[in-house]
């Protein structure tokens, strides 16, 4: 086992998958010679050459559109969008073309690919280097949406995503790109299956759902709840937002009867609202308290006040207290 960062895990996964399958190509802005502005594609250019590691012109629409064309012909592209905040010029390609190609052609054409992109706050990036856009994609039928929370998952999920026959949006939590390191098997072929949530901390008193950079925050809040109140919370890391592991969600709330959802994206019509809706539809009678959502505020992501904006363990703890003390 090696201890590595998420950046390294992503890089390892790309290096190995490109070695395994020569149809895998990487393209994007600064991914080649420069190795990516976060170094996720470091050394790929030297190893696999400029034909498979492509520095593109500055056009996200072009990057995703070209990747679609490559995938139609049988390549397995892994385009990078430098920051997820810059994915919008490509949104037409993603929602109108990528997500619908298999369906609209009656299965005649498919374009499996993995769009990698760093997302989220906590690095003092202001509006355009901090946003969490997951819900725009989870509502788009035809896409798989994945968010790893540590190096083990980052590597295993990325490899699974590259081998998947479906288009995958792979959101990388840049706030925890370099810390904390986690152990990753040496085995080149380990995979973390898409569509399975992971219990990061078992508990019986309440459930917290989370993903990406919010997972360590949830764990910390649970630890505080245990320390301060003796409550034993369960942390459910969703890992794949579509398809959601609904069974894991329902199993956990059935056990605990109390739910706090956690996300850093703005709250209104955010991803976690779906979790509330599912529980309210399928398990309302097991709930012993209101479902509390901890989320970003419904404002553009701020710069100087980002530390106030970002959900932190104490804020989550307050929500835990709310649901635990509810009668």
């Amino acid at each position, binding site marked *: 086992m090696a201890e590595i960062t998420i950046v390294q895990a992503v890089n390892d996964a790309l290096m190995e998958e490109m070695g395994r399958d020569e149809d895998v190509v990487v393209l994007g802005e600064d991914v080649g010679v420069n190795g990516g502005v976060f170094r996720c594609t470091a050394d790929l250019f030297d190893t696999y050459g400029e034909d498979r590691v492509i520095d593109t012109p500055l*056009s996200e629409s072009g990057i995703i*559109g070209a990747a*679609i064309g490559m995938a139609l*012909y049988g390549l397995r592209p892994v385009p990078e969008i430098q920051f997820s905040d810059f994915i919008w010029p490509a949104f*037409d390609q993603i929602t109108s073309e990528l997500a*619908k190609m*298999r369906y609209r052609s009656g299965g005649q054409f498919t374009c499996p690919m993995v769009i990698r992109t760093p997302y989220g706050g906590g690095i003092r990036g202001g509006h355009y280097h901090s946003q969490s856009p997951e819900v725009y994609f989870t509502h788009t039928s035809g896409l798989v949406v994945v968010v790893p929370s540590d190096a083990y998952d980052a590597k295993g999920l990325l490899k699974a995503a590259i081998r998947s*026959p479906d288009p995958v949006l792979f959101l990388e939590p840049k706030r925890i790109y370099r810390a904390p390191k986690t152990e990753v098997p040496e085995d080149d072929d380990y995979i973390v299956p898409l569509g399975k949530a992971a219990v990061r901390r078992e508990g019986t008193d309440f459930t917290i759902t989370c993903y990406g950079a919010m997972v360590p925050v949830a764990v910390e809040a649970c630890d505080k709840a245990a320390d301060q109140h003796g409550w034993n919370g369960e942390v459910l890391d969703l890992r794949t937002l579509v398809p959601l592991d*609904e069974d894991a969600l329902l199993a956990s709330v059935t056990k605990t009867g109390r739910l706090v959802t956690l996300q850093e994206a703005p709250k209104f019509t955010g991803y976690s609202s779906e979790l509330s809706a599912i529980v309210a539809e399928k398990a309302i009678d097991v709930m012993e308290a209101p479902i509390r959502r901890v989320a970003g505020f419904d404002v553009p992501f701020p710069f100087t006040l980002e530390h106030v904006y970002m959900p932190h363990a104490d804020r989550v703890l307050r929500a835990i207290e709310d649901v635990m003390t509810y009668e």
Partner: protein
Amino acid sequence: MTSTDMLQIIGESGQTVSEDETGLPPEKLVEMYECMLRTRAMDERMINLQRQGRIGFYVPSTGEEAAQVGSGMVFGADDWIFPSYRMPGTLLMRGASPRAMIANCYGNSEDLCLGRQMPVHYSFAEQNVVSISSPIGTHIIHAVGTAYAMRLRKTDAVAGVFFGDGGTSSNDFHSGMNFAGVWKSPCVFVCSNNQWAISVPFEKQTASESVAVKAKAYGMPGVRVDGNDVLAVYQAVSAAVARARAGVGPTLLELMTYRRGPHSSSDDPTRYRGDQADEWLSRDPILRFRKFLERQDLWSEDREQESSTRVKDELNAAIKEVEKLPPPPLDTMFTDVYAKVPKFLREQYEHLIETEGTGHEADPDAAFPL
């Protein structure tokens, strides 16, 4: 040659006005002509079906047959075509069957797209004709990606992409042309400049003196062609395909033509234009090519009669068959969203069947959009 000069081989009375370098043998010329007739016949028949309420929507291409058929003939079996919605002739020329196209317009169980898209949004994998979608321009950059893959895989295949004058304003005209220029893609960009984008005339679409000149912005050659002259189209597209195949790089072609009919079955052009269409009637590409063939004794009134009757009979027979087919089965609403139907979609399907059964009737009064 200035950017508004235009390649023409057949003049308006069928005479040869510049050297014919196509080298096409007589039987190919006749095949092209018959395909143009078939395209026109299909147009008339399908618009008719739409007017009768038997299909819901159609996009006519009357007057643009030379552009479609002349370019459709050029590409080889291993080449890929990224078409627009207004070019049934190209697909016919590549071997797509009229019956399959009609089934698409009916959206029934024989439609290769399983009735999931509107009429005329074809998809023919067997002919390497990539799925057509409605958003304008998105496919232009797809062709460039495919061309890249062709080169990476060391084939000598070529990607051909077709779009309208309106399409040149889209984001992915820009990204497609730009990426292709940098990558020296084996890609041919074919713009049918029919001078209208629904109601918007070319001069409100762009101030550039031509579409062809836009190629300069991307470091590739641009050529303007008489799009109503099937031989000029064939020759220009051939040259561009040869250039791409040889690895020299992409080309932009502008085929000058005219949208004689409405934009679609939902459109009423009298609201926004006069009768310029008349002027273009005299430049009819079928008539012109017929005159050319007749001058060379390759065609006659008799053959015309025979051919057009045969084409119409074939179409009518196909329509008759296709009309009997049932709609696609209910479960096709849930398949092909993903490679395998995921659990949550299976549950949605099962819940639907459980609560509503399978006996859904379509609303016959539902209207159609553009």
